[in-house]
Every structure is written in structure tokens, then in C-alpha cells.
């Protein structure tokens, strides 16, 4: 922390990055660390995607084709963990690192040394997590929710490595969140009051508070698992007076805010992109801020809607049902505000806007299926079926991941100084958007027909929809390789230089910097009117 002053001092602003590989190991620069986060997230996205391909290949036909059921379970578990903790969360932290100082007019993040540490914990955490695949007894196989007693009494030996990996990821996330909060609260340019901050900054501020509130609870849950497994405690063991259902309460007290941790920055990104391409200011800025706050607040009060079938009393079911459905109100405020922003706007449809529009449509579909699941009596039918799988992939893939892709297209020209290829961006968009619907939409029907999730084999009547879904999965997976090529192509020059403003109607401090921006963003604070 002593370096805070040093990095913000003037004498540092003229030197560039160190040379060679050590630059990335010792860097305390927010752009370098942002890039590291984004590349780690991309690698984990491809790794988790490869696991999804194994899952969909196995489910292409009924019967056991390629993998044993034990390995299938390890794939579903690691796919979930890698995508949630390895792809989506680090990607958002990467964008936060790149963008927050530029958006609020600061030279760098407030705590650059801690920033370096919080990134470098992650590669070790994920190497440890993925290495469990090669251990005797196999990788964790109890699903990403690691319910006790599956993960305690019956978990494979490698579970202890999984627990340690989760601890490292948690510490990393907490440090990242503290850094974000301190940066936003202490480093804003003069004149930038809280209600003048861009929405991406607002959503990240609230996300960071969610992170420091619930990541410690997750750490507590895995610590209890660790002592139950190795030190003879009985937190989740009924034989010793504990209760396995309590695990689910503790887990979802973390888990529900966690889903908002993944989606709130997406709301921020869409609120930046839509006004740019509609060439109108964001409709209802203040209500957007309050809506995000309301969603974050409610996220702490709805966790047991994941547990309707655990035998809760009627009063509990009713409370959690009403509280859950209430979240649709602030979410609806956001959707309508985005629609109102576009209303009578001079819209153009560059790739970031296409992905943002797809986000609004498809995330709303995920929101509606979430409403269906939030209704207790209906959830009794849908619980643990493919309907749930369809729901959370609509909100996470066409929600969080599409927003991440949109953000990449939107800010990559700023980051690199080069325009991406609009033609290939569009090809990527149409392939992804069509394929992702072919992939996940039939899963609604499978779930309604009763196909359970997390199984390697299924009854014959589910064959057709599974084959369609798998075909969609293969195309969706392949089209992300186009995205990878496109990103590399843009970094290496792309299809020409980007202007400083990049987009005709882009507003915000980051667009006043040159493209690519200097190593230290604002060495003298800009004046915000």
C-alpha cells in the first residue's frame, strides 16, 4: 500500500512498461493487470467451453458414447466452476481494471500492489483446480454447487484441492473488490460526483460491495467442509448433530448474490453501449442506479428459492416466492429504460450494439424463465430439470457472456488503437446468436418434458431435442474461435487505426484519451463539469 503515492506521483508517468516477461509478473499497472485478467478469462472460457463440448458430445445421442458417467459428472462440475470463477468473474475484473481509472479520471487503481497479487493468485488456483482431473479418484464430481454430503462424506480425495482453490479465488475476488471500492470512492476526478459516474462504474461499485459481503461466506462454507472432511467436525453431518440442508442455506446465501455479481457489470456495459449507438443519452439514469441498488439489496433476501423442494414450510415458500418475483420490478425498470433510450434514436448496428441488443432480448427470456422458476408450485415441477439449465444459461451466456463480448468489441479499439474487422464481427455475432438459441432453447422443452439435469444418459423421447441442442453447441463453440482470431487480429493492427473517440456518439472520459491510451491514464485529473 505504500506504493499508492509512488505510482500516482508525477515522476512515474513518463516511464513505460518494463521489458520482457517480468513486466507481466511484477506489473502494478491497471492496464497490464486488466489485460492479464482478460486473457486468463478467455483461456478459462475456452477450457470451460471444451468441457461443455464433452458434455454435449456425450448427450448427442442416448446411451453412453464417449465418456464414463463418473467423468461426465466431473465435466459438469468443472465446467460450472471454471465458467463462473474462471471466465465470467475475472473477465469483469479485467474490464474494471482497464476501464474504471479511465472512466473516473484517475491515473491508476488505488492499490496497485494488491492488484498484482489478486491477479496472480488466480492462475495458481485454476492450475490446482484443473489438476484434480489427473488425480487418483478423479476431479470433484458433485456439481458446481458442491452440496453436502456429496462433497463432504462422499467427495473424492481431490475435494481438498478444490477447497483450497476456492479459498484462493475468494481471496483474489475480495482484494479485487476492495481495490475497486477504494478507487471509485477516493480517486474520482474533481467534479465527478457519485451521480455523474458512468453506469459501468456504478454497477461495479455495487458489485464490489456484494463481493466483499458474500465471498467471505463462501470461504466460511468451504472451511466448514474442510473441517468436516478432515478434522472431525459435523457442521453438515446429521450423525454428529449437523444438518446437510444447512449447507444449502449457507451456499445459496453466497450463491444468489453471486449471480448478480456476474450480471450487474453486464447491466453497466449495456447502459454504456445502447446510448452510444442510439445517439441519445441514457433514459432514466438515476432510476438505473437505484434499480441496480435495489437488485443488489434484494439478492440477499431470496436465496432459498433455490431450495423450494427441501421441505420448507408454506410460509417460507410464500415469502421466498414473493421476494423473488419482486426482483422482476427493478430488472424491468432497466429493460424499459434501455428500450426508451433507443426510442426514436438514430440507431446504427455495429457489432457491439448487435450484441447489446441480443443481450436485451435474450437476457429477458432468461428473466422470464426465472420468474417461472421463482413461483414455488411451478418450481416443484421444474426443479433439477433441463429447464433450470436453460434458464441459467440464458442469463449467463446470452446475458453475462454476451455483454462481455459486446464490451470487448466496444472498448477493444480504445485499448489497442486498432479497429476490429466489422465484417468478421458480424459473422461472429450471427453465428453465435443463432447457435446459442439452437443450443439452449430446446433445453426448455427437455426440462418441461422432465429430463433431469446432470445425467450422461437419458430416455429415448428426449433424443431429438438433445441432438439439436448439441449441434447448436458445436457451432457456438466453434464461433468463439472466430472471436479469438478476431481479437488477435485487432491487437496486431486490425482493419485500420481507431480514432480517439472511436464511436461517433461515444461519451465519457475514456474516449477523451488517445487510442491506445497512455500507460498511466490521467496524470493530471480532468475537470468534470
Amino acid at each position, binding site marked *: 500500500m*505504500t506504493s*499508492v503515492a509512488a505510482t500516482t506521483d508525477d515522476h512515474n508517468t513518463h516511464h513505460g512498461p518494463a521489458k520482457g516477461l517480468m513486466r507481466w509478473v511484477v506489473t502494478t499497472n491497471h492496464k497490464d493487470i486488466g489485460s492479464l485478467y482478460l486473457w486468463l478469462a478467455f483461456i478459462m472460457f475456452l477450457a470451460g467451453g471444451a468441457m461443455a463440448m464433452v458434455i454435449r458430445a456425450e448427450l448427442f445421442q442416448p446411451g453412453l458414447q464417449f465418456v464414463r458417467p463418473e467423468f461426465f459428472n466431473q465435466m459438469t462440475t468443472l465446467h460450472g466452476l471454471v465458467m463462473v470463477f474462471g471466465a465470467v468473474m475475472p473477465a469483469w475484473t479485467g474490464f474494471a481494471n482497464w476501464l474504471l481509472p479511465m472512466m473516473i479520471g484517475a491515473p491508476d487503481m*488505488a492499490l496497485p500492489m494488491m492488484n498484482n497479487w489478486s491477479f496472480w493468485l488466480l492462475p495458481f488456483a485454476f492450475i490446482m483446480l484443473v489438476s484434480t482431473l489427473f488425480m487418483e479418484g478423479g476431479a470433484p464430481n458433485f456439481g458446481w454447487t458442491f452440496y453436502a454430503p456429496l462433497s463432504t462424506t462422499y467427495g473424492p480425495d481431490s475435494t481438498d484441492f478444490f477447497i483450497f482453490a476456492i479459498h484462493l479465488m475468494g481471496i483474489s475476488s475480495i482484494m479485487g473488490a*476492495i481495490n475497486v471500492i477504494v478507487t471509485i470512492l477516493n480517486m474520482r476526478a474533481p467534479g465527478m460526483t457519485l451521480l455523474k459516474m458512468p453506469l459501468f462504474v456504478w454497477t461495479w461499485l455495487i458489485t464490489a460491495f456484494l463481493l466483499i459481503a458474500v465471498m*467471505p461466506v463462501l470461504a466460511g462454507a468451504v472451511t466448514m467442509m474442510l473441517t468436516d472432511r478432515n478434522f472431525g467436525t459435523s457442521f453438515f453431518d*446429521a450423525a454428529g448433530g449437523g444438518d446437510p440442508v444447512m449447507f444449502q442455506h449457507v451456499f445459496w446465501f453466497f450463491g444468489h448474490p453471486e449471480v448478480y455479481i456476474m450480471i450487474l457489470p453486464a447491466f453497466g456495459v449495456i447502459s454504456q453501449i445502447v446510448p452510444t449507438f442510439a445517439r441519445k443519452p441514457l433514459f432514466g439514469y438515476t432510476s438505473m442506479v437505484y434499480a441496480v441498488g435495489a437488485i443488489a439489496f434484494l439478492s440477499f433476501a431470496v436465496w432459498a428459492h433455490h431450495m423450494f423442494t427441501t421441505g420448507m414450510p408454506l410460509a417460507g415458500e410464500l415469502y421466498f416466492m414473493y421476494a423473488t418475483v419482486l426482483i422482476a420490478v427493478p430488472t424491468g425498470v432497466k429493460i424499459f429504460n434501455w428500450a426508451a433510450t433507443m426510442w426514436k434514436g438514430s440507431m446504427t448496428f455495429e457489432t457491439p450494439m448487435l450484441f447489446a441488443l441480443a443481450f436485451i432480448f435474450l437476457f429477458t427470456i432468461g428473466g422470464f424463465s426465472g420468474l417461472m422458476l421463482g413461483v414455488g408450485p411451478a418450481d416443484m415441477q421444474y426443479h433439477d430439470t433441463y429447464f433450470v439449465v436453460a434458464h441459467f444459461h440464458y442469463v449467463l451466456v446470452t446475458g453475462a457472456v454476451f455483454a462481455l463480448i459486446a464490451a470487448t468489441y466496444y472498448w477493444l479499439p480504445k485499448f489497442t488503437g486498432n479497429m476490429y474487422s466489422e465484417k468478421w464481427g458480424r459473422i461472429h455475432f450471427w453465428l453465435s446468436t443463432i447457435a446459442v438459441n439452437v443450443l439452449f432453447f430446446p433445453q426448455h422443452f427437455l426440462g418441461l418434458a422432465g429430463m433431469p439435469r446432470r445425467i450422461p444418459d437419458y430416455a429415448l423421447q428426449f433424443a431429438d431435442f438433445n441432438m439439436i441442442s448439441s449441434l447448436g453447441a458445436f457451432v457456438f463453440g466453434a464461433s468463439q474461435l472466430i472471436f479469438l482470431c478476431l481479437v488477435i487480429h485487432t491487437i496486431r493492427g486490425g482493419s485500420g487505426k481507431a480514432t480517439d473517440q472511436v464511436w461517433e456518439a461515444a461519451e465519457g472520459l475514456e474516449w477523451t484519451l488517445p487510442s491506445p491510451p497512455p500507460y498511466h491514464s490521467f496524470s493530471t485529473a480532468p475537470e468534470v463539469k
Partner: protein
Amino acid sequence: MSVNEPGGGQRSNRTLVRRLLLVVVAMFGFGFALVPLYDVFCDVTGINGKTNRVAEQADGLVVDQTRWVTVEFVGSVQSDLPWSFGPNDVKMRVHPGQLSETTYYAENLSDRAIIGQAVPSVAPGVAAKYFRKIECFCFSQQELAAGARRDMPVRFVVEPGLPPEIGTVTLSYTFFESKNQPDAEQDHSNHAKFGVDAEA
């Protein structure tokens, strides 16, 4: 603003970091506090089917001769425990307030002495508050010698306050292998699984 006054920015950064770390520590503690909170909440509301695990008294209850309640008995064994266990009576009709008795049997199918612990539960969950066990084998750990079989009594009362819409109450037990076993030398592998040394 830290650009203009680095010293001041650094000081306020440090204060803020300290406060945020306090939140982190508090939330870590809260995760553990959920454990007793959960038990207290379940005790007070009687949800979750948690029923008493120490003996209660049957005094002061008036028998309601006008009402019948069916009590069903269920028993199961956790897969690791090589016991056979179940109720001797499947169900019984009782008046609320009336002291009743039934028995469960347990048989050790293995060739070693094993200590087991039965964990009781009542369904529907809201009935748990109105179900009093006066005597129960679940109040203490049970040791069965190799091949031994035993009938174990349960004496209970259904309180007259049981909500009128509940006509059937199910009492269920799951027998677990206790972590304290009589002889550590006989079976190392078993204790290794739990990762604790048996204290013989």
C-alpha cells in the same frame, strides 16, 4: 484527490481499506454464525422436522379422547453402517395427549462391535414442535456387539395442540455410524475415511 495531495489520498485509502477488511472479517464470522442461528431458528419455529434429542416430560397434558392421530414409523440406515434397522410397528392410532410406546429393532450384520447414533426427524416439519419423545434410543449412542439384535423402545406423546389439519405424523430415524467406535484397531480403513482417529 490523490493526484494533488498524495499523502492525504494514501491516508484515506488506508482507512477505507481497513473498514472494508472489517466487513470481510465480519461476513466470514457471519457465515459461521449462520450455524447456531439456523439451529435456533429451527428450534423456535419447529420447521425442518427437528425433534427433541433429549428426554421431555409428559406431565400436564390432557388426553383428547375425541380426536385420533395416526403416527407412522420409518427407519433407515446410512449406507456405511452394516446394520439392519426398522420399526416393529408400521403405524399406530393415538389420542393427542396419550402416552404411547412402540419399539424399533436394530441388528448388527457385521462381525465387529459398532456404535451407532440414530437421528430423529418428524414430518410434516411443523408437527415436530408437538411431538414429545419421553424415552428414545436416539437420546444416546447405541452399541451392538457383532451379530447382536435388540429391540429398543420409544415412548412419546402427541400434544393436543397439534394443528387440526394434521391427521398423520411420521416419525423417522436414520442410523449413522458414530465417529466414536469401540475398538480402533479392528477397522482402520473406516476411520481413515472420516479422517479422525477413534478415541477408544
